[in-house]
Every structure is written in structure tokens, then in C-alpha cells.
């Protein structure tokens, strides 16, 4: 029998043809490969969140193989001697087992936790980028809303996650969560008993949180991320204004190979950072906290950073309780103070950002499609509002750790609380005003340079004795009419060169890190200053 020879070199082509016969993939595949991505560092922030999410999925699967969320009481008998013989839930027991008796388990646990912290941080910073550049404007309002939902989903996922190990800290967090649910008018007690299957802590909450943490919310996150990415591909990226860039095009590199290589490399770097953090920096050392006991708490009980702002709002809110009678029906009713900073405030903080694109469009009467980004300075109102929101957030965040600050810096705890209460009212308007003025000032300076040129640093004395600084006007474009009184360039909302070396007055820096890898360009000799005076000669004694 004759063996059929396989032509190895024709194999890729043949298989590609076979695949295309079945899937007709040639056109859509090429379209994908040719998709153009604009390039700017700030567009990478969202990618950090995406990559952290991938790390979260992978490390989470590993943890799930060892973790058991059961609240059954067991006696610890693992390697960690200080806790031996202590009664604890099976959840805490397996979390300890993961940390001490699984090879590399602690590393994976810390990787999961660090990735979660980074995930939320990247989401927040990415959100700032999108907000301050106006990338949420039409047609991208829907994707902005998906982004806001992603933040809150991540928030819940993180909370559920750090509640699972059932150490003293997570139990305290859960207890506060139960108090928050209790505070909801009318249905509060029903919601709490239903969720906890009775009074806190009950015996089912961890099993329920577990399925929420490993299935329901990750599923929702995956779905939302898919929509987020899908809309991004459909609507294409925004881009900064600049030469050749219009509202109708995308200028950049194609997905393959340029963008894919950069993104792949960046993924590895994000992954590297998470791995390094996980190995070198301890996070959530649950064995130091001990198992959760309702009577035990330690000072400096702080949630993870992304929950801290709500902890801060809870600390700052005054003890304003509403008690009333419903016409003698029942024994009287209560709306506890904790309801406002933990239920109402997050509600506002969800709705307000979600509707912000529409609110802004309505007030600015702007119905146009925007694919070009705005620099923060070019929309002072939005920038100021954003700065105000950040100031509000930061006061809450700091107040979430005010006991630690009070302790470490020897400040009165009550003074810290009052500083937060005053700060939350005073600082946001101040931030608004400051940001507004800075934005206007930066804009003004750009306009100045466009009208009069770059400051050269050369001071010249005029014949009448005045001193002026020489300005180097920027080259005019061809449309400008000489001598129309309005000389200078059109304001384009993009970077204006403000130093002489930005317009080529100085040679570019020589390349090379420790030693030059190229020859430096010859220093340009200043042109002889020709003012019709004969060349000076060396003064000699002429003897």
C-alpha cells in the first residue's frame, strides 16, 4: 500500500481553506485584525481592570477547589499552632488550611485579594478618565452606565469575597451589613431574616454568599464586561484631537500586530505586578484575626479600600434618628441613622453617575455625536464637578480610617470625626472652585501661546528702557490671513507646545540609557548676529 504523503508546507493554507469553507471567516476575521486602535496611555486604565479580572477568575477557581463555605463548627487541627484546638467554622478552617497546608495556597489567596483590590482601583481610575475626558457623551452613554454597574457589581463581589473566610474581620463586616439591611424602612427585618435565615449570623449566610460570589456576580460581571467590550468594538474608541484626527475617523495602529502585541505585553506586566504584590506584600492575614465571634472585635477594623468610603460616611453621619407614631398603629416606628449613609447615599451614588451623561447633555443642549475627547481644561464645569465628587469621596475614604489616623498621628478621635463632618461640607465646593479656576487658567495659557507664541526665556531691553520677554510665535497655517489683526492659531483643544525644544529649537535628546547609542547631532551654531557692524576683532595692544 502506498502511503499518502502529507505536504506539510501546504498544511496551514489547506486547513485555513477548510475552515473558511465551513465558517466563511475570511472577511470578518480580516476586519477584526484590521480594527484600528488609537494610542494613549490613559486608554490602558480599563485594560488593567480587564486583566485583573482574568487573574481573579483563574486564582478564584484555584481557591474554590480548597474552600468550603460551611458554617459547621469544627475544632482546628492544622499546622498553625496558635489556633490549634480553637473552635471555628469550617469556612475559616478551610481558609486557614489554604493558607498553611496547601503548597502555594497562601500565594494564590493573596494573589486573588490583590487582584481584587487592583480590579476595583483600575475601575475607579478608568472611570475618572472617561468622566474627565467626556468619553461618556453620545453615543457612549449606554457603555458608561454599564461601567457604573460594573463598579457596583465589583463592589458587591469584593464584599461577598472578603466576608467568606469567616474571620473576625469578615464577620464584623457582615454584622454591619445586617444592620444596614435592618435599617431599611418597612421591609428591613424581613430582608435580614430572609437573607440570614433568621437572626444574624444564622447558619446559612456563608453558603449563600459563596454561590453569590462564585456564580451569580461573576456571571453578571462576565455578561457586563462582554457588553462593555462589545459596545466598545461596535462604537469604536474615542480619540484625542490632533493632526488628522476628526470626529469621523480613528487614527492609530491596527489590532494586529501592533495593538495586540502591546496589549499582550501589558497584560503580562499587570499580571507581574499582581504576582509580585501577592508574594511580597501580605494582605488579609486572617490567622491573626481569629475566628469570628459576635463578642470580639479589634480596633482598626477597616473594610477593603473600595468599601471604606461607605464606612466613612457611616462614621460621619450624625445620630439623627427618626421616630414616629403611625396614628397609634403599632408601638411606634424608627428610621435609624445608619439608613442614610449606607442605603440612601449609595442609591444616590448609583443613580447620579448613571444619569450624568443625560443631565450634562440636557444642560449643555448638546445632542451631537462625540468621538473626540475633551481635555479636562476644555470643559471647566465638568472638571469642577468631577473634582467636587472626588473631594467628597476622598473625605469619606479618609474618614473610613479616621481611628487609625487618630491613633498614628496622635489626634483626638472626636476631632477627626468633626474634621470629616466639616470637611465633607466645605472641601467639595472648594475643590469645585479650585478646579474650575485651574481649568480656565490652563485654557487661558494655551490661548496665550497660540496668540503670542512660546516664552523663550530671553529678556530683551527695548530702546525706551522697557524689558520684554521674547516670544516665539508658532507657525501659522495657510488659512491665516497675514495682518488681519487676529494673528495666531485656532484653539483646537489639544496640546500646545510650551517649550522651545517642543518645536525643534533644540536637538532631541540623544538615545541610550548608560551610554549614547547614537551620535549626538552637531550643536547648531548660532547664526552670526548680523546688524551691519563689522566683525569684532580681538583687542590687542597693537605694539
Amino acid at each position: 500500500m502506498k502511503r499518502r504523503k502529507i505536504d506539510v508546507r501546504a498544511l496551514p493554507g489547506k486547513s485555513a481553506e477548510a475552515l473558511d469553507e465551513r465558517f466563511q471567516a475570511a472577511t470578518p476575521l480580516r476586519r477584526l485584525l484590521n480594527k484600528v486602535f488609537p494610542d494613549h496611555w490613559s486608554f490602558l486604565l480599563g485594560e488593567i481592570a480587564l486583566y485583573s479580572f482574568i487573574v481573579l477568575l483563574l486564582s478564584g477557581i484555584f481557591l474554590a477547589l480548597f474552600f468550603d463555605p460551611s458554617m459547621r463548627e469544627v475544632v482546628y487541627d492544622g499546622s498553625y499552632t496558635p489556633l490549634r484546638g480553637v473552635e471555628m467554622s469550617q469556612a475559616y478552617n478551610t481558609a486557614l488550611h489554604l493558607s498553611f497546608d496547601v503548597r502555594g495556597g497562601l500565594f494564590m489567596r493573596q494573589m486573588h485579594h490583590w487582584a481584587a483590590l487592583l480590579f476595583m482601583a483600575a475601575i475607579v481610575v478608568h472611570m475618572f478618565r472617561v468622566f474627565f475626558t467626556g468619553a461618556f457623551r453620545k453615543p457612549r452613554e449606554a457603555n458608561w452606565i454599564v461601567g457604573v454597574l460594573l463598579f457596583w457589581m465589583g463592589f458587591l463581589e469584593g464584599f461577598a469575597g472578603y466576608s467568606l473566610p469567616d474571620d473576625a474581620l469578615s464577620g464584623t463586616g457582615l454584622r454591619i451589613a445586617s444592620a444596614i439591611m435592618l435599617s431599611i424602612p418597612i421591609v428591613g427585618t424581613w430582608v435580614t431574616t430572609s437573607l440570614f435565615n433568621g437572626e444574624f449570623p444564622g447558619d446559612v449566610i456563608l453558603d449563600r454568599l459563596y454561590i453569590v460570589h462564585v456564580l451569580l456576580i461573576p456571571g453578571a460581571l462576565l455578561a457586563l464586561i462582554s457588553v462593555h467590550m462589545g459596545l466598545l468594538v461596535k462604537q469604536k474608541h474615542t480619540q484625542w484631537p490632533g493632526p488628522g484626527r476628526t470626529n469621523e475617523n480613528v487614527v492609530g495602529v491596527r489590532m494586529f500586530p501592533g495593538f495586540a502585541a502591546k496589549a499582550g505585553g501589558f497584560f503580562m506586566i499587570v499580571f507581574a505586578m499582581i504576582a509580585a504584590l501577592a508574594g511580597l506584600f501580605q494582605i488579609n492575614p486572617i490567622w491573626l484575626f481569629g475566628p469570628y465571634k459576635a463578642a470580639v472585635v479589634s480596633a482598626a477594623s477597616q473594610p477593603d479600600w473600595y468599601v471604606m468610603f461607605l464606612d466613612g460616611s457611616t462614621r460621619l453621619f450624625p445620630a439623627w434618628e427618626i421616630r414616629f407614631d403611625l396614628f397609634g398603629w403599632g408601638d411606634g416606628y424608627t428610621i435609624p441613622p445608619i439608613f442614610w449613609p449606607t442605603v440612601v447615599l449609595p442609591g444616590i451614588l448609583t443613580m447620579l453617575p448613571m444619569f450624568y451623561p443625560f443631565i450634562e447633555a440636557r444642560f449643555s443642549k448638546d445632542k451631537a455625536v462625540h468621538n473626540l475627547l475633551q481635555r479636562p481644561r476644555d470643559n471647566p464645569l465638568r472638571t469642577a464637578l468631577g473634582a467636587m465628587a472626588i473631594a467628597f469621596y476622598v473625605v469619606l475614604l479618609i474618614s473610613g480610617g479616621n481611628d487609625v489616623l487618630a491613633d498614628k498621628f496622635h489626634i483626638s478621635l472626636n476631632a477627626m470625626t468633626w474634621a470629616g463632618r466639616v470637611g465633607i461640607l466645605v472641601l467639595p465646593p472648594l475643590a469645585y472652585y479650585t478646579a474650575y479656576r485651574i481649568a480656565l487658567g490652563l485654557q487661558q495659557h494655551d490661548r496665550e501661546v497660540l496668540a503670542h507664541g512660546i516664552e523663550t526665556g530671553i529678556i530683551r531691553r527695548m530702546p525706551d528702557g522697557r524689558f520684554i520677554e521674547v516670544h516665539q510665535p508658532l507657525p501659522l497655517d495657510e488659512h491665516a490671513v497675514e495682518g488681519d489683526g487676529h494673528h495666531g492659531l485656532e484653539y483646537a483643544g489639544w496640546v500646545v507646545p510650551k517649550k522651545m525644544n517642543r518645536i525643534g529649537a533644540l536637538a532631541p535628546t540623544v538615545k541610550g540609557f548608560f551610554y549614547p547609542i547614537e551620535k549626538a547631532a552637531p550643536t547648531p551654531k548660532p547664526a552670526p548676529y548680523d546688524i551691519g557692524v563689522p566683525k569684532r576683532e580681538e583687542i590687542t595692544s597693537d605694539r
Partner: protein
Amino acid sequence: MTTQTAPEQEQFDASDPSLTRFDLVKEGARRDGVEIVHYAPRFPVPGTKAEKRIERVLGLMFLLTGLMGTAFVVAYIAWPWHYGHGDETYQKLFPFYTPLLGATLGLALLTLGLGIITWSKKLLPEEVSIQERHDGPSDRTEQRLTAATIVNMGDELGLKRRKFVGLAFLAGAAPLGAAAGAVLVGSLIKAPKQDGENIFFTTGWDPAKNGGKPVRLTHEDGTPIRPADVSIGGQITVFPGIPGGATNKYGDSPTLLIHLREQDAQETLRNVKAVNKDSQWQNFVAYSKICTHAGCPASLYEQQTNRLLCPCHQSQFQITDNARPVFGPASRALPQLPITVDDEGYFVATSDYRVAIGPAFWERP
């Protein structure tokens, strides 16, 4: 769009041997609405010093990736990793296990990432491409056609003509939807009232939980407490002396038993409110440890000022004045547990708390 480009596509012969591969790339991009306006190799002359240098750097980075990856695997397998196992040297090396994993994996990934990025920035051709956007609504005709299709669909159902069928469908679907909801609601919803009592108003101190007898104050290990067990100015956490009283099953019951100094005890007696009458036994008071704000254990007791601080949100309670909140977000006083000493000389709670303990809720008066 397809109709517009069709004639051009016919003119283009992809198998024309005179075309370079890049011509094909450009044509492909053009069909995808992408114009490659600038495409220049980084090193037009092969084998220059600069190019060689980049190649060496890349080689070094990827070698480091391999080296660090190997180091990770070796460390993972061979380095002492087990807490509290092995001999002295094993335990001396153990603390470096996780840092080693982090450092080696981090460096492996970092060099890989930097290598790939260097590759793309230094070796891949410099490129500027422009892709057209197709924003704005669909073609007016398209909109009309789709709208007609959808409206037609609705009309075909004939709900306008056959109102009865629609109503019947709704009447059938609503219970079915309710059925789906009912399973969820019925299995998860639990009423706050259990056995005729609202569980938020009772704790483990309820004599009913002890066969009708007053519940003893006990340590965590279940041993009862005598007055002499608490020194003057001291405080201990006590639990109801019933089976499982110190476990999280009675998470609402931890109580702080405080032995006040004489003058503080007198002050407390002077300040006592109606609800706390006769709760104090000599110089001993017992207050719920569960903060009325968010339910954390309010356990930091400042002896000099007789203030109790909750470490979660810094609510402060004045013990000598009915544990009234004096600072922070808490709005209600800590409930006082009425205590006395039984015939055998041990502390007992004469009754359950007279008001609900812990964070407030809607039905709480």
C-alpha cells in the same frame, strides 16, 4: 456599502503576480475601511548595530523569563513551604517561600511583558492607520423596513382583533410567572416573628430559653460568675448560661458586666431612667455589648471616664448615664440587662433585656 465597493472588487485581482504581499494587505485594509497612511520598518537596513542591540535586549529578556519561570517551579517544589514542619533550617527558610514565589513569577512575567512591548515598539513597523467611523443612525429606508417588520409582527398576532385571546394569555402567564416567583419567595422569605415572638426583641437572656429560670451570667467557657470575680473598675464580657450561650447562635447576647467604683455607681443610680430601674446590682451594671448603631461589639472601655467606645464607627456611650450615646453616629443607649445575684452567689439576669438590643429597625418603638 457592499454595493458601492462591488465594482472595485471586481477590478482587483488578488492572484495578480505583480502585486506584493503588502499590496494585498493594503487592499484588505481598504475594504475594511482602513487606510494605512504610514508604514515604515524600524530598521530599513538589516543588521545595523542598533538593530542587533534590540535583538540582544529581547533575547536577554526572554532568557530571563525562562530563568525566572524555572526558578519559580524549582522554588515551588523544593523550597520549604509547610508552616511548623521540618527541622530548624526548614523553618528558617520557610518565611521566604511566598516572597520567592512572588518575586520569581513577578520577574518572569515582567520580563516577558517588557520583552513583548519592546518587540512591538522597537521592531514592529511604525504604523499610522486611519479607520473611518460609520456613526449616526441607519439608513432611513432601513429604519422603515425594520419598523414595518416589527409592527407587522404585532399585527399578525391580531391582538387588536382578538382581545379575548390576549386577555386569556395574560391570565395564563401571570400565574405562571407568579409560580416562578413563589418558589423563590416561599423558600427564602423568613418572617422576623418565630413562635409568636419577634426574634429581634429576644436574646439568650430570656428565661424562657432556660426552662423559665433566670439565666446565669457566665464566662465564655460556661462557668458562672461571682461578684468577686470582677475587680473594681474592671469589666468582663459575659454570656447567657444556657447551652451554646457563648456561641454565635446567640450573637445578640454578649453583655458587658462592669464593676463600677463607688461614686460612679451612685451617679449611675441617680441618673437611672424608668426603663433601667432596678437593673443595677450594688455597684455592678450589665449593658448589651452590641452597639445600637451597626451591631459591632462596643468593647473599648475607658475606665477613667466610664465611656464605652465602639471601634467600628466610634460611637461612645456614657456608662454612668444609662449608656447614653455621647458621640458618634449611634442614636440609642445600650440596653441594660437587669441583674441580681442568686442564692448560690452567682450573677443572674432577672429578665431579658427590656428593649430590643443592637441596631435599630423599622418596627422598633
